[in-house]
């Protein structure tokens, strides 16, 4: 039988009387999500920890995982709560008139920001059309996320730290944490990576995912110079101090990040592989609890030169 860490103190999860699934697999494997959302949730945690200088390093205390994720409300208002932008761009006003009109509209409409003032943007972009073109371009990279159209739950491609923020519900100008898109599996994955043998090596690679991309710099230019208020989050729980799937997951991440692909081209694969390992984790732990042997997936692999090599079609979970 697998040895688990002690359950968290009862008061940490007061509404959860039946602590059963959670003790077997953790809190929690949320199933109404998708690989990209898990990936984004995970990167959000990693970014917060990197800011704290404790990326993939729990200092010997596996529970609780506490972190302060970014909210980036200025960027999110510009990207996703900005219906007037294209309309004003189409009106063909003189540059300063267009800026004035848009700034007025945003002063009225922006939510969850301390000051509804976006005038800092004017001196950063040489013209309103340039600003519109770049914002549209960034919007084009939004991660597809099913039917959810709420602006505060839309996510831009993870170019760097300025593109990472938590899922929020904004009501009456105040934002609260939302679990619909980020339902904690990303936090579990973070802890898995953290507890794997090669965590230190992986931390160096992950740290490079946060800075340096031009689009990340562009996103930074969409924010005023200010320090945002961040709330502390963290009530996830991963019951094992180590597991073979944690190490396999890290190995796959390292292989991709150190491989020849351009960095962003690895992201879809990282997202998919992360889910594959989560699935393996779920199955292997379940098999262990039921005293059955390792389950198998049947995977058919295309091999480009026909008949040169036939990869083994059975992959052990």
């Amino acid at each position, binding site marked *: 039988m697998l040895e688990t860490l002690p359950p968290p103190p009862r008061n940490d999860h007061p509404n959860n009387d039946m602590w059963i699934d959670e003790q077997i697999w953790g809190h929690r494997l949320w199933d109404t999500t998708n690989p990209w959302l898990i990936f984004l949730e995970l990167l959000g945690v990693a970014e917060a920890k990197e800011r704290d200088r404790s990326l993939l390093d729990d200092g010997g205390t596996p529970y609780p995982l506490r972190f302060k994720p970014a909210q980036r409300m200025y960027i999110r208002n510009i990207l996703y709560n900005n219906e007037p932008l294209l309309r004003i761009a189409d009106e063909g006003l003189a540059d300063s008139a267009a800026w004035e009109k848009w700034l007025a509209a945003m002063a009225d409409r922006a939510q969850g920001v301390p000051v509804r003032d976006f005038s800092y943007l004017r001196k*950063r972009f040489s013209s309103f059309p340039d600003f519109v*073109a770049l914002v549209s371009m*960034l919007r084009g990279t939004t991660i597809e996320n099913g039917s959810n159209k709420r602006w505060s739950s839309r996510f831009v491609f993870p170019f760097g730290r300025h593109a990472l923020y938590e899922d929020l519900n904004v009501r009456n100008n105040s934002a609260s944490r939302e679990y619909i898109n980020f339902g904690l599996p990303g936090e579990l994955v973070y802890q898995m990576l953290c507890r794997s043998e090669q965590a230190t090596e992986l931390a160096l690679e992950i740290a490079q995912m946060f800075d340096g991309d*031009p689009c990340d710099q562009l996103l930074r230019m969409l924010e005023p110079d200010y320090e945002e208020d961040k709330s502390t989050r963290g009530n996830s729980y991963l019951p094992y101090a180590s597991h073979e799937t944690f190490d396999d997951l890290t190995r796959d991440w390292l292989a991709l990040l150190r491989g020849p*692909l*351009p960095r962003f081209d690895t*992201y879809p694969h990282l997202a998919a592989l992360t889910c594959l390992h989560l699935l393996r984790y779920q199955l292997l732990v379940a098999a262990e609890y039921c005293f059955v042997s390792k389950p198998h997936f049947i995977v058919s692999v295309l091999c480009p030169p026909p*008949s040169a090599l036939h990869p083994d079609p059975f992959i052990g979970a």
Partner: protein
Amino acid sequence: MNGLGSRWVRFIKQYGPIARNDNMYDEQIRRSARRYDVEPLDFVHPLEADLFAAISKDVARACSIILTGTAGDGKSRLCGRLWTELGGAAGEWTANEIYQQISAVVGGRARTVGIIRDLTALPTNGTYGAWVGKPALLEAINRSFFDPDPDFIFVIAANDGQLLDTWRRAVDVPLSDEGYELLEACLVEGKPASQGEVSFFNLSAVSCATILDLTLEAIVAHPGWTAAYAEAEVDGFFSDACPIRRNYEILSSPQFRSRLSQLFELMDLNELHTPIRRVLLLIANMLLGHPLAKDRLMSPADVRPLLRSGKAHAGDIFQNLFGANLTHPRRESLEIFEFLNRFGIGDETTNRIDNILVFGPSDETLRPYYVTLVESAFSPQALDELSALRNDYLERPDATQDGEHLFLDSLQAQRRAIFFQIDEDQSEELRLWDLTVFRHAGEFLRDVVIPLRQNVRVNRVILSRLVNGLNRIFTGMLVTTDRELLVAAGLSGSAAGLSQILMERISVTPRRHERIELRSGTLPTLIVEIDSGIEVRLDLNLVRYEFLMRVAGGALPGSFSKECYEDILAFKSTILSALARSRPTQESNDLSFRILSLNRAGEPVDDVIEVNCA
């Protein structure tokens, strides 16, 4: 009916797609040749000379030999040939023994050569020469790889998949890891490993066009046919109307052979390998196929009844070539027919060809084409039947109760025949290759493959169109640019459908160290040279060539082949990483984006948008 001609035809039938085809295995072929008392088929395998050289008296270094390839590539047969070449008596080479050994002078001195004709069939517990058990034998083989002057050398025949598998599983046998590495390097990368020595022959790497030419020549030239002519029976076997004779005569015509050979060459260029056994199966089916015969293959005795019932012409070589005589599931299960049917011959067409088929007999201008393309391809019986169907169709073109008009069904068969009737001179005019899925296949062979093989530069127009196709896929826009390669990326990775961020333009004509050109290789290869010595290459198989040409011609990249589309995007990704390595971006405080858009002429223009970071 037991003359040589008839026995020969019955012997060929054993190669065909029948439930128990005796001629599957080399061991059985020799037995059945004896039973029918005919000369077995014989031709020199293209690798035979190299193989003999590797085991000759004066070879510079004696080492073990691996013969690998897929089932039916001729491994066992080559083992047998080696046995006699080394001085073994033909009678001692028996089907029952998987391992046999012989002493011979190889590389200057006497050595023992052990021949394993099928590694997988070798029982674990057996005595092989001086070795007891398969592990001991494997160990001896491993030693022969790494001994600079081995006393024992081995010839090992094994299917490619099972070869590596055997070494992977032999964890307890000394030197197996090193042996595995050596064999993997030979098989996968086709190059020698860092240490160890082995002569490696991959029979699957032999072009199937070559195999087709050799087997066809051996079959067509066999004395059995002369005997068959001599034995011709009135209204029966090998009479004028006999379908087997008709098929044989078409098969031996240069026109048919060269077109068939082109199809095989295109299969090579599509990386589809066909072993000798399946080529023989195809030839047997072409000659003898008939949907009404037993096993769907004719025997000499079937000819007379078929002629009498007026059904003989259904055994038509042009249909048999595509397995039309077989049941649907049987055809699907045989790889060679699946490969050939991928060309879509019979289903693809042009208005011109269909006009000839429908109005040819009555239209003055089309009539000459009808005569050369259709009338010469079918037997008088088949033509009568076609003419009745056509007349009926022209009068009442409505569908029958059972579906489409029967004449429409017959068009497929007619187009197949026409594909082989159009000669090279007419191929441009009648757009021969439009009768296949690969409309650019003829151009690919004529203007790319053959010039490269002769070390001639490929016409610039072809290269421009390929570059245009690449540009449309790389940018996701309908650009007209064909003199430079537009390496564009999406913001979020290179695989985005629309890639608006221009990273680099690479000149097609040499400029500094940049250039784009086609070079020869196993497949024609498109080379993008970014800087001195830094090249990115794309193997152009037939599908990719067709894909790029169609995209250049206006097709949408996603509409032809998802796999090709992804391959080309991956190619772009490789170019991008090579660029990133060879021209690293300088750190600067300026933030700017080169955004690509199209002007009215479809030419790409890039706007630079700058952001003030200060």
